[in-house]
């Protein structure tokens, strides 16, 4: 499987957190569907050239959060619990918005300016026709 988002790490943040985020985003984008097998620890560690123990730590956390589950001897799978996936979407969306607002408030933009900028951007870039699920 290709998890393109993984390719670039920000080494100033814990790597295991970035593995967790990348898996969550892959689930939200539908690249990983409920019941899908996620890459094995070894596969992912090799693909990303990172410590397998770091991947293992991320997988344990995903399982603890109920986003994945383990089938003995078969590997890790995406939860089939639709509510979990819905709340995951919510969680990621909130995080994106929070980071976005934080970034903008650090350059002293008010809400009106921000909304205006978004509208302008969407219009110019032709994003208005893009699907938002």
């Amino acid at each position, binding site marked *: 499987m290709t998890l393109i988002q993984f390719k670039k790490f920000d*080494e*100033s*943040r*814990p790597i295991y957190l970035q593995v967790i985020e990348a898996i969550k985003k892959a689930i939200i984008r539908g690249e990983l569907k409920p019941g899908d097998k996620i890459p094995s620890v070894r596969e992912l560690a*090799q693909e990303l*050239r990172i*410590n397998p*123990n*770091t991947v293992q*730590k991320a997988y344990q956390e995903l399982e603890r959060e109920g986003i994945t589950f383990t089938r003995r001897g078969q590997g890790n799978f995406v939860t089939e619990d639709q509510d979990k996936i819905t709340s995951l979407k919510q969680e990621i969306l909130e995080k994106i918005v929070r980071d976005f607002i934080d970034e903008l408030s650090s350059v002293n933009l008010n809400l009106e300016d921000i909304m205006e900028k978004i509208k302008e951007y969407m219009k110019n870039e032709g994003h208005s026709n893009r699907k938002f699920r």
Partner: protein
Amino acid sequence: MKAIVIENLGKRFGTLWAVRDLSFHIDEGKILGICGPNGSGKSTLLKILAGLLRPTRGMVKIYGKNPSKHTKRVVSYMSEIDYLYPWMKAGEILDFAASFYEDWDERKRKDLVNFLKIEEDKKIRELSRGMRGRLKIALALSRRAKIYLLDEPLSGIDLSSRAKILDALVREYRGQEETMIISTHLVREAEPLFEEVIFLKEGEIILRGDADELRETRGKSITEIFLEYFI
């Protein structure tokens, strides 16, 4: 379980203390990065762990035992020095090592030779530095050791060979019962592999911690933290 325990370790050469008063331990199954500039004591420390140098003072335990013939059986050490005989063929060196070590695994050797694209028929003098670096890694990783000590596996090697060596390390590392210590001054390339790091300066530990925890608490990469300490 603790794979290695070191207490108040010191090593003196003449009047110079290459390693002064080191104390730390490594749990089994971890990859530890030892980072420091040249002359910080990295090689001396690894040689002591490999049983090639005797400590001047302090204690070293490998699975509870002093470094000796017995610990050498479970420790695979890769020297920083280019020690390969130029007239030998790559394959002959691998065969020689195979006959020497009880824990040599021919399957791992074949896999590594294949993966690292090592030409066994070539003489060492015909190999590039990068290729010699790949061969040294293949020699160290073809053993089924419990502890791997890799001294500067990336140093003086071209970019593509460095990438290939890092890939081989991730591929071959089995975790759990395998412990790896990698010394390097090329922190940027190696840091994604480290679970724990130690910064060594003039024979002393100036920083030690879990790599992701350091990133979390300082908001910086290990490379950036390294530069703060050494520039």
